[in-house]
């Protein structure tokens, strides 16, 4: 379930904003993402912003993927995992 698309917040008026991706501009309610500012990438679901895209994290994903590939070549794939996993207590 739960179709959501990323879009760039371009305007904000109180909680109501306007988000854009590829020239589709849709109104979004930002009350679930307090502190959202124009210039933020938001995840939009059913007219609501439900989260903010973390560019640091996004970069980290790709970095970890690259790391994984390198690790795989070195035939030790597990070691790269530890960065983002949570072991059960």
């Amino acid at each position, binding site marked *: *379930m*739960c*179709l*959501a698309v990323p879009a760039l917040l371009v305007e904000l008026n109180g909680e109501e904003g306007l988000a854009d991706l590829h020239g589709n501009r849709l109104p979004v*309610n930002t*009350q*679930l*993402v*307090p502190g959202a500012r124009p210039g933020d990438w938001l*995840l939009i*679901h*059913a*007219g*609501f912003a*439900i*989260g*903010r*895209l*973390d*560019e640091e*994290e*996004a970069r*980290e*994903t790709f970095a970890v*993927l690259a790391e*994984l*590939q390198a690790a*795989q070549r070195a035939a030790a*794939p*597990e070691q790269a*995992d530890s960065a*983002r*996993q*949570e*072991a*059960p*207590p």
Partner: protein
Amino acid sequence: MNPPEHDVRKSLERLAAATKGGRELAFMEVCGTHTTAAFRCGLPSVLPRHVKLISGPGCPVCVTAQQDIDLLVEAAGRQGVTLCTYGDMIRVPGRRGSLQEARGRGARVHVVYSAMDAVALAQAHVDRQVVFAAVGFETTAPATAAAVQAARRRGLTNFTVLNSHKRIVPAMQALLERGAKMKDGLGIDGFVCPGHVSVIIGARAYLPLARDYAAPCVISGFEPWQMISALARLAELAQSGRAEVINEYPEVVSPDGNRAAQKLLDEVFQPAETRWRGLGLIAQSAWVLRPAWREFDAQVRFGLTPPEDCEPKACLCGKVISGLALPTDCSLFGRSCTPLQPVGPCMVSSEGTCAAWFKYSWRQAPHRPLPILAGASP
């Protein structure tokens, strides 16, 4: 975010490497958007033969009990009512037909994109009673909570919701619980966790599944390469016997989730037992309105009582979404149950497991080399 093609290939190689020579592995996704994404890109056709991707109870339309659909149709038929619904629900058949059919009989049924659209409609038409069909998991429920709060702030007395919001983790727990009681178990080796539900509930929400049931959980995005990568990770965990929760969608999913959304959910809703199509009653699996918000409950406002639930005979949907049967195992599939005339819940939504099977792969196609397209590309 489209990675170069080699990332898909690399992930597939990882998956193949992790499963090589091992036993058959079955992983379950619990998100209709995962189901659709997987089938649309032909994912089943590229997976190694001994890896199965099962679609669990992740399509909110499919798991909405027949009695809840009947209530919606009844509400839509009431004098002066305008029923607002997401497009997903409109074709789902109850015992007295679907909302689409109710509209054909003259009922006012509006498709909305946002719960706030329904509030705005109520504000603009004070002579109508606007009832919002609130379906969905944690991703969608905060929007309903926000709508109810907005309606109170605006002093609207003509806005109510018919609520069947659900919580995904109790359903996953119920599957594992029931599986543990069965002789051969459920045969699920891990979960591909729903990326956008996880935005709200956070990665930690799955820890009990890993801790209490030893089920590996990997949170995944919706691009094909992300899903393949999640499967590879699950295979690695399963083969090495590690039950962990791994967040492979960290650009939007945090360990604790969206606290503002959680707070809003908690203000308006409380967990309760509810009925799922195909799975029956599951404790703590619903978000119901707290007593302080009862005035916005359409069941209370219109004195609606849910009819007795009855599920279609011979339908295997309950087993399908538990991962115990394939759509093709069902005697109804493709015969009396089709997307044109759905019988069971998994066929009613385009995201349902049976509908996706029917639409995209009514037979498992044998592997064949890709056709080579000479000449122009776009």
